[in-house]
Each structure stands twice: as C-alpha cells, then as structure tokens.
C-alpha cells in the first residue's frame, strides 16, 4: 500500500476529475446552496434576508408538512417491500432462458421506460369513476363505485399501485442479474441432498443475493421518498392532502407560495430523512450479514 502510494502521481487524479467536477457542481454545490437558502426568507426573484433556523421551525410546526411526511412514510413503507418482494418473485419466475421468459422480461420492464405523464394517464383511465376500467368492471359486477382518486385512503393506494407498476422493471432486472451469478453447482448439490424448493430458496438463493436485496431496497427507499409526479397528476395531493407527499409539499411552498427559503428547509429535512433511512438499512443489513 505504502509502495503504491509512493509510486502514485497526482496526475492520475485527472482521470477522476470529470466525475469530481460534475459531482461538486451538480450535487455538493446545490446541497450547500440549498442549506444556505434555507436560512433565508427569500422568494425566487431576488435576494432574501437571513432568518437563521426560522424556516425549519415553521416547517416542523406546519400541520401540512407533518401530514405530507406521514403520507410519504406510509407510501415508502408499503411500496418498497412490495417492489422488493414482487421484483424478486418475477425474477425467480423468469430466471430461465426461453422465448416466453425473454418476452415477459421485456414486457415487465417496458413500463419503466415510460414517462410519468404516460404512466399516470394510463392509470387515470383505469381508476376514474364512470368510464374507467375498474368502474366498468364494478358496474358489470353490480358493485358500488369507489372514487379511487378522490377518496381518503384510496387515493394514496392508487398512487402506490401506479408506482409499483411503473418501477417494477429495475428491481426485477437487478434480481435476475444476481440470480444468474449463483453457481449452478450449489443447486446441483441441493438436488443431490433432495432439498425441497423452499429450502433451496431460503438456504441458497436468498443468502446468495442478500447484497442485491439490500441494493434494491436502498435504491427504492431513495426513489420512493421522492414521490411527486404520480401524486400531482393523479390526485393533486388530495383529497384533504391525504396523498400529498413531501416533494409535492416542497414544490407547492416554493413555486405556488413563492417561499423558497421554507421549501429549501423542507428539502434539507427530506434529504436527512432519506440519508438516515438508507444508512439505517445499510447498517442493519451489513450487521446481520456479519453475524451469519
């Protein structure tokens, strides 16, 4: 290590420079600037005045922020396990190379390439009352209509369904890639020992892809905490703010109320929450792994 350090030259750092410059310009600088903004009373159109941590106090006291935080936590707590479990199920089901599985892999991944506008348009057609797909099915069955996009409880659920449909492609592909890295001789040994499918899954497959499960979970936690477009386009955060996520709160405060300082404070809080959630997940998962 010492020898390699002696032989290393600072010029080698130039290889990392493009990344470091981009990282600093688009991530570090906005983060610091966002924190600086959060300490000011400022709108979008001019200099503000320093107010210390007033914006943080106002945000934390705001019932709409607390409601948005709760909505977001519920959303993350329900969609992330669903995405991990469903992604794993699809990957296990499609982990064979046949024409049918190749087609189905493409089919399940296809939704991921759509824009949020198209995704919400599709699911709006499914959920809207009267002429929507579910409404027609309910009519046919003689069931009462449900306002999926305008009823408390159902609105966040509907946004979650659309999100899982949209995002399922990436977890499935990551799990498929991990499954194909497991040496075949492990399964052959299990077959010789007459192990049943459940035992193979829990003793060979899941331990072998544990790191991928962690990776998928962390990626999804970070992504789903940033829920915005689906909620804005499908429910507009309603009814009564019951499907308004944190990013939508930040957007409304910043762009509709013109309180950019307060929006920046809420953004910093969201950043800390995402960071903590990802770190806790990482620490817990790696500890369990060490204990095995």
């Amino acid at each position: 290590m010492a020898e390699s350090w002696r032989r290393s030259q600072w010029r080698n750092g130039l290889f990392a420079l493009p990344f470091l410059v981009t990282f600093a310009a688009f991530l570090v600088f906005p983060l610091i600037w966002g924190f600086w903004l959060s300490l000011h009373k400022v709108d979008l159109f001019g200099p503000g005045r320093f107010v210390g941590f007033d914006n943080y106090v106002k945000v934390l006291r705001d019932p709409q922020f607390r409601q948005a935080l709760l909505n977001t936590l519920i959303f993350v707590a329900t969609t992330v396990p669903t995405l991990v479990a469903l992604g794993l199920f699809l990957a296990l089901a499609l982990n064979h190379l046949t024409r049918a599985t190749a087609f189905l892999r493409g089919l399940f991944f296809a939704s991921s390439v759509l824009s949020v506008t198209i995704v919400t348009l599709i699911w709006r057609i499914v959920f809207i009352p009267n002429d929507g797909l579910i409404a027609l099915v309910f009519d046919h069955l003689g069931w009462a209509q449900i306002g999926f996009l305008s009823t408390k409880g159902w609105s966040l659920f509907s946004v979650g369904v659309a999100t899982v449909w949209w995002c399922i492609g990436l977890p499935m592909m990551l799990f498929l890639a991990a499954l194909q890295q497991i040496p075949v001789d492990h399964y052959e040994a299990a077959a010789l020992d007459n192990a049943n499918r459940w035992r193979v899954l829990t003793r060979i497959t899941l331990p072998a892809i544990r790191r991928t499960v962690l990776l998928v979970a962390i990626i999804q936690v970070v992504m789903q905490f940033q829920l915005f477009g689906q909620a804005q386009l499908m429910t507009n955060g309603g009814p009564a703010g019951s499907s308004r996520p944190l990013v939508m709160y930040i957007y409304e405060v910043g762009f509709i109320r013109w309180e950019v300082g307060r929006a920046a404070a809420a953004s910093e809080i969201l950043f800390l929450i995402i960071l903590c959630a990802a770190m806790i997940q990482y620490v817990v998962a790696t500890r369990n792994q060490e204990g095995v």
Partner: protein
Amino acid sequence: MKRFLFGSVALMAAGWASLASAQTTIELQRFFGACDAEYGSVTDVSAAVGECGIITALVNKFQADNPDIKVNVTTVEWPGYDQLNAQMASGAAPDVVSMHYSAISDYQSRGLLDPVDGVLAAAGVDPAAFTDAGRGGVTKEGQMYGLPFDNWTMLFHVNLNLMKDAGLVNADGTPILPKTPDELYAQGKQFTEKTGKPYLVQILANETAAYARVLYTFLQQQNSDFFADPTAIKLNTPEAAAVVGMLKKIKDEGLTTVNMDYPAAVSGFINGDGGIAINGTWLIGDFVAQSQQEGTALANGYTVYPIPQLFAGRDATYADGHGWVLPHKERSAEQDAAIAKLFKFLADNDYHWARNGHLPAVKSVFDMPEFQNLPHRANIAKIAETGTALPAAVMRQFAIQDIIGEEVGAAVNGDKTVEDALSTAETRINELLADL
C-alpha cells in the same frame, strides 16, 4: 444545367435565409390548451370553436397577416404560473404571457412585469376602449400591466332536455332555477327522482378552483366582506358556514355527481350525466356546438344562466379575467413593435375571443350585432354588473384558492367538519398572507 441548378438552389437558400433573418420573433406562452391537430393550420378564425381553437386560429391568422413576425407559441398546462416562475427566476421568461387578472398583482408588485401603456400607445389602442372591469383588472398603481382580453365567471350550464324530463321548465321554455338553497334542494330532489340522474354536474375531485369560485360567489351574495382586510381573510363566519353547509348537503343528498375531475365533469355534462353543470363561461361555445349536433345529449336542449342568487343580500358572482402581460426583460425595438401589432390584432379581434363565452374586454364588441346575436348572451349579460373580483390588493390568490379548495373539499366529502375546515382554511391563508 448543373450550374443553373446549383445557382437556383443557392439563390433560394439565400432568399430563405434573408427572410428568416428579417423576421422578428416573439415568444408567446399561454394556457387554454393545445389543439394543433385540429387547428394547427386554421387561419379562418370564424371557423374556430372553443378557447383553444380560437386562440390558435387567431395566432395563425396574425402570422399569416404579418410574415415579418414569427410567433413561437408555448402551451402550458393551466394555469402555468409554476413554469413561468421558474422561467423568470432563471432569466428565461417569454415575451408575452397569458395571465389571470387575479395573478397580476403578485408579479407586478415584485417588478416582474413591464407596463403595457407604451406598447398600446404605439399600436394606437386607446385604453378607454376597454371595459372598466377589463381595464381595472390589469391596472396597478395607475399603469396598465396587461392587455385586457376578457372577463369570465362560473355559470349554470343547463341541459334543457333533462330539465324537461324533470318538469323543471317554464311554459316559455326557460328552465326553472332555484332562488334559495331550499328551492335548490327541492328542485334537485325532483330532478333526481324524475330522471334518475344527479341535478348538478360539479368538479369535486382533483381540483381546487371550482370550490373557491363557488364559495366566493355565495359569500358575495351574502354581502360577506371576507377580505375587508386584504392581508387577512375571515372565513370563520356564519355566511361561510351556510355556503359550505349547503355544498355538503347537496352532496350528501345525492344531488350532484361525485368524484369527477375537470375533464370528467365536462364530458359528463356533454354525455347527459346530470342537469346543470357549474362551470365557466369558456365552455359556452363548445356546449352550443354540441347542442347543434343531432343525437347528442344536449341536442337542441342547451342554455346557460349566471349562478342564481340563492342568498338574501345582492345578486353577485365571482369574476376574474384573462390578460396578456409582458414579463420584465430586455426586448429589441423590433420586438416591441411586433408585440404592439399583436396586441392591436388581439384587441381588434376580441369579438372572436368572446365567441367562446367570455365577456369581451373591448367595449365596442358589446354593440356589435354579431355579438348580440350570439346564442344565450342575453341570458348572461347581467354578469357585466354582478361580476365581482376579489380586492386587487389580495396577494397569492392562486395559493389561497388551493387552500380553500382543499379545505372546503374536505368538508364537502365529510373528511372534516364544516367548522374545522373553515377554521383551518382561515388559519392557513392568514399565515400565508402574514408571511409574504
């Protein structure tokens, strides 16, 4: 031959290039929807129907008449102010933007708009040509900050075919409309019993503007001075409770469609899902066109009236308007001249814009026989007197509208009590206004 061909092509290219460089470009940003598939090349404005069709045809016609001016149109989702804010913050604002009168104060007070008095003078447009409501809507601190284009309000769009089935039509063919909340409940009940359909077609989902406009209207009818102080709203009042209580009762008694967002409510009324749609002036042209087609739910059976006076006090209805504003930025003299031409063209063609149902902003349009002969205009003529805006000093009217819509919607849908919703709305709005 080759030389001739090359020479011709080079000459044509040079001609195009010189034409392109001679063109003055205006970046125009608007809402009103996108309909290029239908109206993208239409220059016959009289053939266009609806807000989107008419404004698209108007711009096409202006471009055809002025080949030296290129109008680049950007269509934004209604109302488009979030996008405009981002553009202004990044110094990339368009040259001309559609804006509600109720939003102009926010931008003018921050120095984000240029006055248009000079542009109008250059175009030879006399400010006295505009209606008081139009001119008042764009005038701040003695200067005009926009070209007034119209005034609009919410209306009762009536499906006369269903009203006949419900026995709610007078001998002269006019609909029987309520004059008190109790009459509204009774007529709604009669309508629902006779037709099996809800009396009202309302936008109750995924939208906030309709709730706010209806609340303002019925508060104004009760002479409730809820914005006596433009920096603080009063909603914890018996008048506001009476309005929200009425809206809730309408829903609870099954007198209205539920769960419909804006597009669903418009198509629902067109499909005959209910008797009376509470929606804006801008839909009159579209609904008239529907009523002129055989086989539709509105065929030969559409009319429209202002929202009736249901409360003792005065006949009033909340009104706003659309104007064209100039974001503050550097423009060339050629661009200023091009904008002046465009503004004159829009003012000169205000009649065509008014065909969609809006009240004209240009006084002389009211005297035009063509305007007077437009369907149903006599029914709604009184909104020129009864239309009432919020005080111009009230800032952040769109943010306020969102809060009111969310809280009143919560009360109507039973997610909160009426008192809790009004109290929360008042607190949230006053915190917003106190923190500007």
